[in-house]
């Protein structure tokens, strides 16, 4: 889409000198109240930030970066309720990224981190990387492995874009059952990403 040639990610890095906390938090507050477009923008911004965060720490394994970005995005979505609006959003985001990174190291041995620092740097020094590397693990294929009810609930609401009420009517389940199936399905996807990357 943006760049058809295979670019070095160094060229794609853009150092943030503007107010990411301010922009992201403004979007996030709207997203928390149910604004879908704001949530999409916020997640895209968060994804670019996460990519920079992981790339900086995993230069030796760039192919694992996108897996980790996607796993972390799923976690962010599933854990939306743990963000306290009184606190900085980037602190929440980085704490999740850090947790996921350390978890990754634990599963893959510390050699991955030999040249890389876990320490947080000032946020204005963190790159936002917008190039979308290909993840090794295809979430689309993982979707097919979900139990039928969970897969259907995700396909109905998340792919086809039906409202929860419409999806409930189609499947003959209650609205809260549909919500639970979507949540459990995404949770299972996150667990698979964690165990298989």
């Amino acid at each position, binding site marked *: 889409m943006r760049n058809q040639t295979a670019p070095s990610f160094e060229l794609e890095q853009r150092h943030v000198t503007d107010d990411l906390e301010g922009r992201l938090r403004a979007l996030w507050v709207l997203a928390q109240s149910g604004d879908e477009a704001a949530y999409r923008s916020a997640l895209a911004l968060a*994804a670019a930030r996460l990519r920079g965060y992981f790339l900086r720490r995993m230069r030796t394994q760039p192919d694992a970066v996108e897996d980790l970005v996607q796993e972390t995005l799923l*976690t962010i979505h599933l854990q939306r*309720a743990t963000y306290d609006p009184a606190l900085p959003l980037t*602190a929440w985001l980085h704490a*999740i990224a850090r947790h996921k990174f350390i978890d990754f190291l634990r599963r893959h041995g510390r050699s991955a981190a030999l040249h890389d620092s876990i320490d947080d740097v000032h946020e204005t020094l963190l790159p936002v990387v917008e190039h979308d590397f290909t*993840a090794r693990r*295809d979430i689309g294929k993982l979707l097919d492995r979900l139990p039928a009810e969970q897969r259907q609930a995700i396909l109905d609401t998340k792919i086809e874009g039906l409202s*929860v009420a419409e999806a409930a009517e189609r499947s003959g389940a209650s609205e809260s059952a549909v919500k639970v199936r979507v949540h459990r399905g995404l949770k299972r996807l996150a667990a698979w990403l964690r165990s298989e990357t």
Partner: protein
Amino acid sequence: MKTQELVELLARRAGPVAPRVVQRRLAGAALGGLAAASIIIIAGLGVNPQLGAMGAPLVQKLTFFGALALAAGWLTDRASRPGAPSAAAVASVIGIVLAMAGLAFMTLLNAPAGQAGSLLLGSSWSTCPWRIALLSVPALGLLLAAIRTLAPPSGRVAGFAAGLLAGAVGALAYSLYCTETSPAFVLVWYSCGALLSAVAGAALGSRLLTW
């Protein structure tokens, strides 16, 4: 699936986030544990028949462990969220324990000669901590289950905080039965029971609270 496609998928029909989810889950677990522990103490050991006439000692126990439960609950809330500072919650836990320690110290200082020992040991020091630890089990189980749905940066810390909250809940239930009246007894032996629960919570938390 490209990351941008995942973003689209996650955002579509995401809906609003319910307010205060963390607080409601933790409070529900703690209250459920309090109800379970109260039923166990009422059915198992029975309520102290002199409870209504106890006065100040009962008020002290309930105030101390009520406040400790709130402070430990606040700490558990902080420990269940990524990037949330917990220093103020830790300070409030310490402050509440110090206030109770001050009260206990004063009663020991003002005690008639030779009475300090009995104020400290009462008649049930050897059973009190174990009973409180056992009474905290339902709350601890419910709290750990609740925190498993959240994102604690450290399972050990979140488990410790949950264990402390569960211990305070167990102590509140135990005060329905207990006949001890000395603040020094309550400070030392009740808190021992709550600490047992906290240590168990930390050990369980580091294993169970992964995400």
